[in-house]
Every structure is written in structure tokens, then in C-alpha cells.
């Protein structure tokens, strides 16, 4: 396998992991919205309500930064990262 194929393989792996986490917090948990809302969540809000107000939103922010850092590591590993910083 060429260096580029390996790089793409890892990139795709990261994509699937990112999309899996995305799926859980944008779709998965809302399959059980009614049940989850009976449970107390952070700061005392009902759990589903908290996810729609803050939880899912905040997790998406963290997820994107995590993804960006992981992708940069992959790019560096194969010497594909860009020169210079920004």
C-alpha cells in the first residue's frame, strides 16, 4: 500500500469515528427522548432538555476540535501537513 493509501485509510477511519459520535448525540439519544427526560441531567435540568439546550451543542464544538487535532496528527505522521503555522 502506498503512503497515500495508508493516509487515506486512517483519514477514513477518523471520519467514521467522528460520524459515529456525531450520530449518537444528534440522532441516537433522541430515539429515547421521552425516557431520558425523566432522568435528572447536569445543573438539574431534565436530561433530554439539557441535551437540546446545551449538551449536544457543546459536544459538537468539542468534537470538531478533537477531529481537527487528530487529523493534523495523521497528516504529520505521513508528512502531508502544510508548512508554516496559522
Amino acid at each position, binding site marked *: 500500500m502506498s503512503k*497515500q493509501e495508508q*493516509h*487515506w485509510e486512517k*483519514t477514513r477511519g*477518523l*471520519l467514521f469515528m*467522528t*460520524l459515529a459520535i*456525531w450520530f449518537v*448525540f*444528534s*440522532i441516537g439519544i*433522541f*430515539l*429515547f*427522548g*421521552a425516557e431520558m*427526560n425523566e432522568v435528572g441531567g447536569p*445543573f*438539574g*435540568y*431534565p436530561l*433530554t*432538555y439539557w*441535551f*437540546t*439546550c*446545551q449538551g*449536544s*451543542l*457543546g459536544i*459538537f*464544538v468539542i*468534537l*470538531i*476540535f478533537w*477531529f*481537527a487535532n487528530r*487529523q*493534523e496528527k495523521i*497528516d504529520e505522521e505521513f*508528512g*502531508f*501537513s*502544510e*508548512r*508554516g503555522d*496559522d
Partner: protein
Amino acid sequence: MIKGNFIDNLPKVYGIYTGGFLAFIIIMSIAEQMGMTAKTIGICFVAFTVAIYAIIGYLSRTAQADAYYVAGRQVPTVFNGMATAADWMSGASFVAMAGGIYFKGYGYMALLVGWTGGYVLVASLLAPYLRKFGCYTVPDFIGTRYGGNLSRFMAVVVLTVASFTYVTAQINATGTIASVALDIPFQYAVYVGLISILLCSMLGGMRGVTWTQVAQYIVLIIAYLLPVFWISNKMGAGFFPHFMLADEVARIGELEQQYGFVKNAAADLKTVPKGLAGITKAHSAVNATPWAFISLALAMMMGTASLPHVMMRYFTTPSVKAARKSVGWSLFFIFLLYSSAPMLATLSKLSLIDPSLPTGIIGKSIAEVQAIDWYQNWNQANLMFVSDFNGNGTLELNEFFMGGKAVVLATPEIAGLPYVISGLVAAGGMAAAMSTADGLILAIANAISHDVYYKIIDPKAETAKRLVVARVLLVVIGFAGATIAALEIQGILGSVIWAFDFAMSGLFFPLVLGVWWKRANKEGAVAGMFLGLVSGAAYLVWVRSGGSGFLGITQLTFGIFGSAVSLVAMVVVSLMTQAPSAATQKMVDNVRVPAGKSVI
């Protein structure tokens, strides 16, 4: 002080700007104490901020294609994040979102999840790759990746349909705010709004829009957060509302139990002015089926990843790496406002319906409520209404009606905040609507000038001529949007959601598969864009004209049907026709590697 090394000085420049804006707010509040009228304060806020944007637009003028189309590709990560957040958050997000949450609760909050979750798709599937591609516009990517004028043209069509649906709503919103703040008729106010919008974008294109959007973000976020924190503190609900409103949310639940949701007779509801609604849905309970919630969230997420005015912001970063990080910053800045909207809805609702609070009106006598100053003001503005349906002389929960906009616009006054806050909110709403309108008009005009005029009609045109065409189109499209907005056909939010569905119907899979599926070819992409858009639009027309729909797909989520058709059409047609050429496949390989020169 600013010229020369502008990019290095950005934090300083915008730091001074923010300080100046805060000083302006303080001056205005002193002026209010000294007797300046509410109307003058409103005019000062709107005129002052619009003048600043116009100056920024003028200073950013340019004669270079690179600066005009992609701001010279040198916008730093964090600032591009702010610009994208302003580009993204429309007049609807600013003025109508808290109201939607207030009235519809959980079912509506699918939009919060959808309009943020979409950025995960943007960051992981598209933005870095399109940045590496080095295109000027989204159809530029489609046209070069798949080849041929037809695919390029189809992409321009989808982009125009989606963005134009959206932009009329934004011009409408600038018109509404300008007409209230400046006290002029709506038909003229729409054009005042349009001229303000064009002042930001005409001379500097993307460069001008970028630096005004950063300025507009700062205004709109201050205008949204300051009242939320102030009201929360004034009500004694907690000094940091986001973490401290659990008791208030629970209290609303208790009151809902106590009052019950009484259904009004149809004849009674006919007497309620158009556009106003009562509280009929639980505040924090789950009041929608899982599929209703998930389908709306999914449509908004895929729509986010297909809207060209957002995507093109990531063409302006200095590198691929910066494009990825910049998506994270965009969402962070959006999060600041979106996570505050439910808190504002909670504070607003509790302050009105809790009889133990001095501002609570439910349970008071109707005559008493009708004598309150703020009730009279907002009743006159056609945003509040009470009526004694059961004739007992007391205001019940089902007898109180309000417009969605009132949650943002009226809550500060109800809570007893000074008028200066109302002026600030007007300036914030104006900034939100202007920044989105600018992004959208520019996306359409650039696609037509770059992809249709330059790439298809006259590939030999000189830069100067191209930029003249781009500017003429900007004005023409702006006026077309304003003319339609002046007709007041569709409410703000309806058309905003449709734009997402149109965009995802036609563009989501052609964009994503262009990067992630090498075998995707021209014929497949054209079929995907064409059939996706047509089937989505047909579904919308069908449901609007009384069709029952299927699988629970409504007129707000028709993009799910459109994009499914698009995916199937694209895969089937691609596999039935020839694989893309070796050169195209190599181009896709090249897009997937961040390092090295851009593809175009």
C-alpha cells in the same frame, strides 16, 4: 495605524472596536438618563452601527479577483469563525428562535441540534477538501471535479434556488427592523436595509463582507447576551443563567400542570390577531415523536453542509488545517448564542406566567393587564393580545397571546430594563440579518459572475471586467430580493427552513461524493442535482397543496426525500456510465492530501 499590516493588527483593531461599541452603549444610557427619547436612541443605535459597517466596507475595497472572491485567502482561524457565525446566524436566529422555543418547546429545539450538528459534517466531510481544491465558489468545485458546463450550471441553479429563498427573508428582516427603528414605512425600509447591505459588500466583495461580518458578530452577540444576563440577574434567577435556571424550568412545569392547557374554541381563536399564538405546548417535556425530532434535525444538518454561503467562508482561510479549526471556532461562536436562546425563552415565559413574580400577568384581572404600559405598547405593535374567552374577568393561560418576535423584543421592557437595551437589540437584529443577507447575495452573485459569466460565457474576460459584472449582479440580485421581500409573501422562518431543504436536495451528495467516492462522475452528478432538486420541490408543492406526504416527511423536511432521490440517482447513473478519467481520479487523490499546491 491599521493599514500596512492589517492582518497582524486584527486583535487590536477589533479590540478597539469592541471597546468603542461598549462606550457607545454607556453614552446612550447616560443620554437616556438625561432625557433622550426611546425613538432617538433606536435611530442612533441603528445609524451608528450601519455607518461603521459602511466605513469598513469602503476601506476593504479591492480590484483583485483573489481578494474579491476569497478575501485573499488570509483570514485567520478565529476571525473567520466569527465571520462565519455572523454569516450563519440570520435575522431569524436572532429575533425568532427564542420565540419558537417559547411556543413549541422540544419539537422546535430540533433546530438547535440540527443547526449546530451540521458543522460536524462540514468539518469532517467537506470544508478542508474544498479549501484544498482552491475554488472560488461551490459550483466551481462541482464544475471542475465533474467536468462540463452542464454540471457547473446545475450547481449554480441549485445554489440560486436555495440562497434566494433565504435572502428574501433576510432583506425582509432588515426592512422590519429599519422600519421600526427609523419609523418609516416598510416598503421604503426594505430598500434602506438593502442599501446598508450593499454598502458592506459592493466595493470589497468577500474581503469587505469578511471584515464587516466580524464587526457584526461582535454587535449581535453583545446585543443578545447582555439582556439575557441582565434579566436573569434582575429576576434573581441566577447570575449565570445557563447553569442556574433548573428551578425556573421546573417551576414552569409546575405552573403548566396547575393551569392545564385548555383548548380554545375555533370561534374564539378567530378573534386573535394573525401571527400571535398562545402557550399550548409543554416547556421542557418531550412533546414530539422521535422521528419528528430526528427528521427535522437531520434535514437541517445536511442542509447546513450544503449551503454555499457557509461553505465559501472556508475558502478564505490561509490553509487546509486552518479551515478545519475554523469550523470549530465558527460553531463555538454560534454556540454562545444558541445556548442562550432557551434560557431567554425560559426567563421570558416565567416572568409572564408566574403570579408570584411582579411581572406575572396570568391570574390578574383582564382590566388590570390591559392597563399595564408595556402591554399597551406591544398590543399596539400587534405583538400581544389578551381576551376574556370564559368571561370570568381573570386572565387565564389560554387567554394570553403573543408574537414570536416579542420574546426577544419585549422581554427586556417587561423585566424593566432601560430603553437603551431595546436600541441595542434592534442594532443586534439588524447586524444578524445584514450579515447573512450579505453572505447570501455574494454567494449568488459570485456563482453567476464566476461560473456562468467567466467560466462558461466569456473565459477570456479580464479581471476588471469580471469584477464589474460581479458588482452589477450583486446590485441586481439585491434589488430582486428586496422587491420580493416588499411583497411580504412568506413568514421569516418558513422560507429559511426551505432553503436548507432545497440545498440538501440538490447539493449534499454531489458535494460529499465528489470527495469521498472517486467513481462518481459527471452524468451521476448532473442526475443527482437535477432529480434531487426537482423531486424535493415537487414534494413541497404536493404537501403544500394538500397532499398527505409519506414517512412523516413534512414541508419542513422535504429535503430528506429530495436528497434520498439525489443519492440513488447519482449512484445508479454513475455506475451505469463510464468511470471518470484518470486525470479526474488523480485530482481527487490530490484533494485528499492537505499538503502541496491547490488543485485548480
